[in-house]
């Protein structure tokens, strides 16, 4: 535990990145990204394809070095020094086709410093535990794509890492296996393991993550708790009235829009009471009214869209 200036204990950080930059042949793939991932958290990196998620993860893991900025992983500046405490499942899965399933798991463990004999023993155990006991002695080339993916996932965890990094872990999995993976991620976090994963499917992040980083165009316009991201946009009001027109309409905010029989608009800063008063006094006839907190999807669209708009403005200014 660390403590801040006020003496309040802070959760130690599994990952700390400040202003990391990566350029490829004049193209800036990651542009000054800041991330802080508390230990034991489930942390999501959200962004569309090509946003810089994979490059960011690769820099954090030491596969490539940043051109600028600093990164610390489990307290180490060089991620390979703490490689034995990290598990990584890349987006493009890969195993040696001629290896047997348990050998593949043991090999992935050996790469992280787990003795081969121990890796073999655990590999067999893990396969049995996850209902793949029949595949222990099968070669990877004899397994289906989904099964091979599970074997690689088990190989990522065989050395009991403190930090697990998954790059688009849900891609290529059917709904049942997606559910299993979500459970596994929750179990890992419950045991104190920090889990970071990238995804472009917000629903997974919304269900699993304590904190998220939204990445777009190589920049991170938001990084923090999911609740804070959702609070970035005001709650949404959904209102159904018997009357369609009346003086009460003047009390509606500017962004109000009618979809079907429902009015949709952001909750005004003054709250719902003045609007309610106007509706009642104007005899609008309230049929239904709900105030919903924004979802992560709405937050993502608002935040990533805003960042894209800012980036465009910057580009225009630079051209001038």
């Amino acid at each position, binding site marked *: 535990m660390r403590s801040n200036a006020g003496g309040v204990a802070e959760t130690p950080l599994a990952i700390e990145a400040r202003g990391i930059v990566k350029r490829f042949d004049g193209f800036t793939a990651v542009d000054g990204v800041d991330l802080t991932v508390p230990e034991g958290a489930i942390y999501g990196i959200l962004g569309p394809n090509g946003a810089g998620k994979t490059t960011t993860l*690769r820099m954090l893991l030491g596969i490539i070095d940043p051109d600028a900025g600093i990164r610390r992983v489990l307290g180490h500046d060089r991620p390979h020094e703490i490689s034995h405490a990290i598990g990584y499942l890349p987006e493009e899965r890969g195993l040696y086709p001629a290896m047997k399933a348990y050998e593949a798991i043991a090999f992935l463990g050996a790469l992280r410093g787990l003795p081969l004999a121990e890796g073999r023993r655990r590999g067999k155990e893990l396969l049995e535990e996850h209902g793949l006991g029949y595949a222990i002695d099968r070669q990877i080339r004899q397994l289906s794509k989904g099964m091979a993916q599970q074997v690689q996932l088990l190989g990522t965890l065989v050395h009991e890492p403190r930090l697990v990094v998954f790059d688009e872990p849900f891609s290529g999995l059917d709904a049942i296996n997606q559910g299993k993976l979500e459970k596994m991620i929750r179990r890992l976090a419950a045991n104190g393991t920090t889990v970071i994963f990238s995804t472009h499917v917000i629903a997974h992040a919304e269900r699993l993550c304590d904190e998220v980083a939204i990445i777009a165009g190589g920049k991170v316009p938001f990084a923090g708790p999911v609740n804070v991201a959702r609070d970035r946009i005001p709650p949404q009001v959904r209102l159904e009235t018997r009357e369609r027109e009346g003086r009460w309409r003047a009390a509606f905010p500017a962004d109000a829009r009618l979809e079907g029989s429902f009015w949709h608009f952001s909750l005004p800063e003054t709250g719902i009471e003045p609007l309610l008063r106007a509706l009642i006094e104007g005899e609008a006839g309230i049929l239904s009214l709900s105030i919903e907190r924004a979802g992560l999807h709405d937050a993502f669209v608002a935040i990533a869209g805003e960042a894209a708009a800012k980036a465009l403005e910057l580009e225009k200014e630079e051209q001038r």
Partner: protein
Amino acid sequence: MRSGRLSTLQAAFVIARRDFVAILFSRSFLFFLLGPLFPVFVGVLAGGIGAKVQTSVQPPELGIAMSPADMQAMSWAYDKLEARLGKDVPKLVMLTPVLPGQAHDPRTSLGNRRLNLGAVLTGSPSAPVLTGSNEQINRWQGPVSLIAAEAKGLGQRDYPAVTLAAVGGKTQLDHARGQMITAQSAQLLLFLLTMMLAGMVLSNLVEEKGNKIIEVLAAAIPMDAVFLGKLFAMLAVSMVGITVWGVTGVSIALVAGRSLSELTSPAVGWPLFFAFGVIYFAMGYLLLGSLFLAIGSLATTVREVQTLSMPVTFLQLFVFFFASFAMALPGTAIEYGAIAFPLSSPFAMLARAAQDPALWPHALALAWQALCVGLIIKGGATLFRKRVMQSGSGGHAPRRSLLRRVFSRV
């Protein structure tokens, strides 16, 4: 049990162990063992060219030791006949004239390492005595008789009989030529072995690319360790292969009743020469293999890796011919160039071991080669980190041609 941090060497061992076992039990290892059949083919084809190189470089000369007047007459006759007979007349080397009351021992001149003598002519133009190896004196008997007749002023009317004196052992020239054959054979063997192995390393990398496991490796351990592991795995595989070939070769030789004593002993002696052979083979392979890995790792597709193998094969051929050429010019800038250029250095030094007994140049050369291996591995790993993992599946990094990626500034 939690896992512990691996050192670079331990990490390299994990890679080497996997690769070694995988290759040893693969079909490609069987083809590797059958590989020597290919050198037999090439050896037969290259033999003709090699023999030509060997004879065109440093043709043997005829030493002459007679009275000053006879030597002058022989020299005059030689000059007169040389234009007409061309290459059939050996070049004359004037040794110390024999004064009255003195004698000349041809064996001493033939044993002189600084001279390139095939035979020595003594006596007089009327009664010439030709001393040398059987092969050489029989070949030169005719031209010597012609020169002697001309020197006597008899022209084509009376050819004096040449007394032939065959020396029992090999002349210095025979020895030098034998050593050159040893050096040439060793170079050829080294070249074929390294070519085969470097090709296998490249195939191994193709497999990694195809399996997309390279990112898993790069995330877990430093790329230097990945490269080192791959190189040493292949080296270990090749040692197994060499042992198999060696045992087979020796068995065949024993059955056929042949022995090494039939070959000219290399300058450093057979045991050291074998040791140097293994060491220079390892260095040659590590140098070329690390270069293959460095370049091959830049390719993003299997097809690109395969495309790269052609120019690199040409480079290997160039290196081999450069080293072969340098072998025939010992002590020249070309030989030193071949020794200094990392890729040809092991070939040039092995040839030197066959021809020169000095050992200290080998220590220097090995240190230089080891340094180059380290630099190439480090450079390859750096290139890999900087240029290979450019984007995920949806990355927007502009796609650049293979050549631009290979040659662009790091």
